[in-house]
């Protein structure tokens, strides 16, 4: 039974990783248009990517946007989720709605609407514009993750803190944040990932400050260039490295937690 389950889990992971692995393989194929059977091994696509300074520059921009976006949207999403969880107030539905609607809007329309609005207020055409739009788009994900975690929080946990005389700030620090920590971490990762992969809105609002996914879009959509396989493999390797690092940190944390318990 357990073996079957493990086998099943393996299959699901194969589905998730298949396109990544195959694109990794194609990134080393000389052929401009990936076909079977694979022809000669080549690192030409990596060389091409590295030869264009635009690539590293756009990657740097994306990292800035993603890190600012993830921190801001996770904080906003966390606060909003807590408000929705803890309080009942007038206009709550509306409050939650403006937090949740952005991902429901088709990106092409959101992109144009954002461009027109931001240029009206003089904020279009730079990385700050991308950050503004990405925080709008990413906050709902952070909010949903934290809200889900909060719904699992035992009611008596916060009550106990209050009974011990803690005010909102203290119980937030001592009880709520530690309880939600895994969700907060996940929210930071997921919002960063969404930002790192968002090109449709970024294309409109970024002006001349092209981010990495916009670069990838240009390489894929019109040129069908295998350089994107190289870029994809590069970012994936990087993220795997981060996974390993996170793994080390989390396991260390867990050990400490277990000792405390």
């Amino acid at each position, binding site marked *: 039974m357990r073996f079957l*389950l493990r086998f099943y*889990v393996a299959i*699901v992971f194969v*589905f*998730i990783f298949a396109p990544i692995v*195959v*694109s990794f393989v*194609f990134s080393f194929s000389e052929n401009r248009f*990936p*076909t*079977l059977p694979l022809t000669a091994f080549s690192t030409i696509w990596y060389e091409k990517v590295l030869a264009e300074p635009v690539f590293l520059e756009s990657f740097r921009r994306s990292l800035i946007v993603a890190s600012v976006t993830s921190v*801001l949207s996770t*904080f*906003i999403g966390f*606060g*909003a989720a*807590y*408000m*929705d*969880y803890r*309080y*009942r*107030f*007038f206009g709550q539905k509306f*409050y939650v709605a*403006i937090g*949740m*609607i952005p*991902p*429901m*809007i*088709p*990106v*092409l*329309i959101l992109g*144009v609407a954002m461009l027109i*609005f931001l240029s009206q207020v003089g904020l279009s055409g730079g990385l700050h514009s991308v950050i503004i739009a990405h*925080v709008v788009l990413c*906050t709902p994900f952070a909010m*949903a993750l934290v809200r*889900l*975690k909060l719904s*699992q929080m035992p*009611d008596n946990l*916060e*009550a106990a803190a*209050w*009974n011990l*005389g*803690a*005010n909102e700030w203290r*119980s937030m620090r001592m009880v709520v944040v530690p309880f939600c920590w895994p969700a907060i971490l996940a929210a930071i990762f997921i919002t960063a*990932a969404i930002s790192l992969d968002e090109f449709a809105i970024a294309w409109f609002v970024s002006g001349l400050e092209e981010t990495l996914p916009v670069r990838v879009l240009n390489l894929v959509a019109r040129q069908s260039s295998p350089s*994107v396989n190289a870029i*994809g493999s590069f970012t*994936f390797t990087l*993220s795997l490295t981060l*996974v390993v690092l*996170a*793994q080390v940190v989390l396991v260390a944390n867990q050990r400490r937690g277990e000792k405390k318990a």
Partner: protein
Amino acid sequence: MAKTKLDRAGGGALETGRASGSASRRAFIGVFGGPLVFWQGLFFVAPLIFMFVMTFWAVRNYQLSADFTLANWQAILAADYAWDAYLRSALGAGLAAGIATVVAFPCAYYLGLKTTPRVRILGACLIMAPFFTSFLVRTYTWRTMLGDEGVLNAMLGWLGLGPFQMINNLFGSVVGYLTLVMPLVLLLQLFSISGIDRRLIEAAHNLGCNPFQTVFRVIIPGARNGIVLAATFAFVLSFGDLISPQVLGGSNPPTLSILIVDQVRGGLQWPRASVIAVMMVVTLGVLVSLAMAFVYGGSTKRAKRA
């Protein structure tokens, strides 16, 4: 916000903590509740209103001009293909949400309950890793893999099967949607399953439930929130996704997100495209509020009863 009357949900026990000054409390609410109002109010509400207003605008000489006309609504609502696309998008997104939910559950169950914390964290990290490879790249790679002479058909050919048509149709689109939503669904499910109180599971076990009964009587109800939310997110993301139906579905036939692109391509009809966008937002908004009411409405009631 500041004027609204705030009541804590939950029992009277929580009220005792209210001793702290109301100024401090107002600041607390401002710091945690304010940013959403500030950010979305400043940067999102205006574009959202603009999208809606634009549906009444006209296009003259290929340029947007302010107007008040119902022509865009009439054009879209009267078009057979728009409703076909609407149903098609809903079908694709529904399939994606359903399949992702069912397929991910055993996985989340295994990672959440049947393995060591170490493996669980590794699993969670691995689930997040694909997020960092461009979805565009993954989709185009699927296209090459699923094509008439692609990797998969070649492999099936060795088994004497096929070739099957796996792109330029609904199957291809759904593969794309699943690629998009699977990691998120898995993660949300894993989250809620690993949050279930283990004592409940032990109790079920002690009461003589077999593993299947435990799953259906304890785990699924316990993880209900996460499962429903994950499915909702899967539907929302698939419903609006342009890449999958375009690259893997071959726009054959088109979905709503493709119609939006085509409205813009044909005569720069941003207003008509916005009409479709509003249709989509309304649909998804209703769906999400139903899901949220189902999930959190229920839990509040339970909390009150307790």
